C-alpha cells in the first residue's frame, strides 16, 4: 500500500494543540519544507519536541504558532543564537522546558519501550532539575542511590527529512542519523519527506543505511531540497547565506513580514526559485 501523500495532506492531519517532534539537528537535515507547510496550515498552540533545534523551531516561534517547546538546545551553531527563540524566551511568550540531549532521547526511548520513565544520573546537581517539573528524583529500590526519572515523551507526530524513501515508508539516511529513528518510533504518526522516492528494490540496496522502517511511517513525500536552508549530507550543505538573511529579517517587523510572504507563503517550487533556483543552489551548496 502506497503511503505517498502531499505535504498539504500531511499537515491537514495535524490538529491545533498537537505535539510534534522534529528530526535533524540545528543546521542539519531539518524537514524545513514540511515545517513551512505546517506554518502555512494555520495550526496553532503546537508543542515542539526537539533534541537539537534550529531554524525550524525558530521559524514556527516567529509565526506565533508554538505554545511550548521541549528541547535540549536551540541555536544556529556557527551563526549564533536563534533570534525568535531567544526573544520569545525573554518575553515569556512560549513555555520552554529544559531538557538535555540524553534525557530527550531517554524520554522518547521510554515511550518506545512502553515504560513510564527511564532512570539516569544526568541532571543531578543542576538547576535543570529545579525548573523542569517533568523530572523527578527517585531512590533506586536496590541500592538506595538517587537518580533522575525521565518521563516518557509521547509525540503525536514526527516530521523527518531523509535522503531517500520508498512509497512503503522505508527511509534511507546517508549522513548522521541524529535522533530521527527515535522520533519515528515514539510518535503516533510519522511523516517523512525525502530528496527522492525510490522503488522498494532500489531502496533495499542501501542495506544498513535504511534507518527508518515502514512500520513507523504513515506518510512519505518527495521534496528535493526539502531540508533547505539546513543541509542534507552528503548532497548539500547548510545555506549559511540564506540563514544570515533570515536572521537579519527577524530584526524588524517589515522585513520579517516580507520574509514570511516570500519564503513561507510560497509553494516549494516558488520557494526554490526565490532562494535562487535549483541550479544556483547546486552550484553554491552541493558537496
Amino acid at each position, binding site marked *: 500500500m502506497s503511503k505517498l501523500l502531499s505535504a498539504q495532506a500531511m499537515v491537514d492531519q495535524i490538529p491545533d494543540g498537537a505535539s510534534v517532534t522534529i528530526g535533524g539537528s540545528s*543546521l*542539519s537535515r531539518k524537514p524545513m519544507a514540511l515545517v513551512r507547510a505546517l506554518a502555512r496550515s494555520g495550526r496553532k498552540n503546537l508543542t515542539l519536541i526537539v533534541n537539537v533545534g534550529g531554524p525550524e523551531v525558530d521559524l514556527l516561534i516567529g509565526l506565533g504558532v508554538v505554545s511550548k517547546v521541549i528541547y535540549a538546545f*536551540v541555536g544556529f551553531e556557527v551563526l549564533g543564537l536563534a533570534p525568535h527563540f531567544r526573544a520569545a*524566551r525573554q518575553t515569556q511568550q512560549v513555555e520552554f522546558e529544559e531538557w538535555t*540531549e540524553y534525557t530527550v532521547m531517554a524520554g522518547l526511548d521510554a515511550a518506545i519501550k512502553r515504560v513510564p520513565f527511564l532512570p*539516569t544520573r544526568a541532571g543531578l546537581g543542576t538547576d535543570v532539575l529545579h525548573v523542569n517539573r517533568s523530572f523527578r528524583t527517585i531512590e533506586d529500590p536496590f541500592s538506595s542511590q538517587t537518580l533522575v526519572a525521565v518521563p516518557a515523551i509521547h509525540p503525536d507526530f514526527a516530521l523527518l527529512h531523509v535522503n531517500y524513501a520508498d512509497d512503503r515508508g522505508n527511509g534511507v539516511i546517508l549522513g548522521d542519523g*541524529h*535522533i530521527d529513528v527515535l522520533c519515528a518510533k515514539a510518535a503516533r504518526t510519522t511523516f517523512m519527506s525525502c530528496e527522492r522516492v525510490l522503488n522498494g528494490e532500489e531502496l533495499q540496496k542501501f542495506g544498513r543505511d535504511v534507518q527508518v522502517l515502514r512500520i513507523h511511517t504513515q506518510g512519505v513525500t518527495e521534496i528535493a531540497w526539502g531540508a533547505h536552508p539546513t543541509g542534507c549530507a552528503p548532497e548539500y550543505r*547548510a545555506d549559511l547565506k540564506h540563514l544570515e538573511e533570515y536572521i537579519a529579517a527577524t530584526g524588524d517587523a517589515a522585513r520579517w513580514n516580507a520574509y514570511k510572504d516570500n519564503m513561507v507563503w510560497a509553494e516549494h517550487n516558488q520557494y526554490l526559485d526565490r532562494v535562487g533556483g535549483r541550479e544556483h543552489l547546486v552550484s553554491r551548496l552541493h558537496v
Partner: protein
Amino acid sequence: MNNRDVMAIISARLLEDQQRVLVGVGTPNVAANLAKRLHAPNLVMIYESGIIDARPKKLPLSIGDGTLVEESLAVLPMGELFSQYLQTGWIDIGFLGAAQIDSRGNLNSTTIGSYEHPTIRLAGSGGAADIAHHARRTITILPHSRERFAAKIDFVTSPGHPPGGCRTDGGGPWRVVTDLGLFGFDSEGEMICLSLMPSHTYEEILDMSGWHIPFQSPLSVVPDPSPEEIRVLQSLYDTLPGGAL
C-alpha cells in the same frame, strides 16, 4: 592570532594521543582537530551526533557536517552513543564551552539573569549536562570576564564538583582554558590558576573574576604558540569556505 586561536592552541596541548574526546562545537572543535594534526594523530574524536573516530579533511562547520561522516570509523545512532558509550565511562575527555563558570566548575549555558525573566536566553544544555556528568573529566573553554567568572552563576546547566570536595569518582571539571590563564581544581574541588597565558598577569585574572582564584606556586606562563602550531591552525582555517570562522 586572536584570543580564540591562542585558546584553541593551548587547549589542544591538553589532549593526549589515543584519548577518546567528545568534541563540542566552536573552539573545542578547532582545538581537537589541531591536536590530531600535531602531537595526537591517534586522538579518537567523537562528535555527539554519533560519529566515532572522525578524520575530517576539513574543519567541520557544525555537528552533522558531512565532512565528519566520510572516513569516520562508525556513525552510531546518537542514542547509542549517549546511553551505551558516554554513560559507561568510555569517553576520556568531554570538551565543553559555556557562558558562565563558578569556582567549582559548574557551567551555565541556559540563561543570563533570572530564569523566569532572563536578560539573555542562551541555546540550552544540548549534551553538555550529560557529558559533564559522564565523561571521565572535562575541559571547558571560555573567554575570561567578570560576568563569565561569577561567584554565583545564574543557572547551573552542567554540574561541577559537588559542595565540600572533588567528585569522588575522579570525574568532573579538570581544566579550564581562558584568554588569561589555564586553570585546574584543587583537592577540595575549588578552581586554581595553574599558568598564565602569554603576556597576561595574575592581577588581570583577579580583576576579571567574581571571586578570588588562588594560584598554584610557582605560577608559570604557558609557552607561546609555536610556529608549527600557528601554521597547522592556519591550514585548518584554510579549509573553511572563505578561509576563516
